């Protein structure tokens, strides 16, 4: 059967850049049932497909056309701007996803904010955030998955205690190609534990307050005893 043409009718002939696009996207980390391999799963349209470091898109609805097809939603997706991807990661349903930098290539449709494209190579993990807000230094079982693959969720140094998990470098070492792990962007999102210490004295403000309340109680007891006497 003849393949449907990729180029949409009435459109100027396509671009031919000399290097792949850099894009940013979110994906769930997954580990195989035996723990030997890791990969990525999409968030919405590609949520049931697992891909590795390099991959070619295929349409889940119609295998007779090559992604990306204009009137179909198929193909890999990425955003041009890192800020847009970080914004997307704030949504509740995306909190456990990894933020990735990718090289987008092959056939593509370029939009204002991003690309839909046929071939992808993941370059780096830019962020992984624990549910508590700290940077996710490791990946633990998320409690969900696909046949043959368990979803992983980022966990911080504190929340990982007592849980089986893969540190990010172990996760990337089980991928089918090299992927960098960058210093996690969420490390600088919020000040870490700002109430834990008083900057001037080094003491916890809660401890100071507790001591002052105890002193006040002692003075009230002393006053009461004098009145009684």
């Amino acid at each position, binding site marked *: 059967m003849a393949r449907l043409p*990729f*180029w*949409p009718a009435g*459109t*100027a002939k*396509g*671009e*031919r*850049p*000399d*290097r*792949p*696009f850099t894009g940013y996207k979110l994906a769930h980390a997954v580990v195989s049932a*035996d723990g*030997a*391999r890791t*990969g990525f799963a999409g*968030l*919405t349209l590609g949520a*049931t*497909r*697992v*891909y*590795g*470091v*390099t*991959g*070619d898109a295929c349409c889940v609805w119609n295998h007779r056309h090559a992604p990306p097809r*204009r009137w179909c939603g198929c193909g890999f*997706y990425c*955003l041009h701007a890192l800020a847009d991807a970080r914004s*997307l990661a704030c949504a509740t349903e995306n909190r456990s996803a990894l933020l990735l930098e990718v*090289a*987008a*290539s*092959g*056939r*593509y*449709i*370029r*939009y*204002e*904010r*991003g*690309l*839909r494209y046929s*071939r992808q*190579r993941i370059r780096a993990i830019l962020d992984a955030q624990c549910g508590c807000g700290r940077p996710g230094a490791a990946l633990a079982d998320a409690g969900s998955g*696909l*046949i*043959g*693959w368990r979803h992983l969720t980022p966990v911080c140094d504190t929340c990982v205690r007592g849980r089986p998990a893969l540190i990010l470098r172990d996760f990337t070492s089980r991928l*089918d*190609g090299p992927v960098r792990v960058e210093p996690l962007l969420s490390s600088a999102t919020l000040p870490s534990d700002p109430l834990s210490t008083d900057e001037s004295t080094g003491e916890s403000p809660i401890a100071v307050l507790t001591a002052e309340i105890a002193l006040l109680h002692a003075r009230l007891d002393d006053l009461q005893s004098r009145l009684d006497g």
Partner: protein
Amino acid sequence: MRLGKEQAVGYVEDTEADGLPAQELTIGNPDEMPLVPAPEPPLTVS
């Protein structure tokens, strides 16, 4: 993911790839189990 208005179509080679073969993982495919090296034939000493 909303990408906004379409601006262009095109094709680009991944010129930065270091020659690694493409590998697509699929779900539930026993053919894609980790590869195990074949056992080497025993050495014969004469």
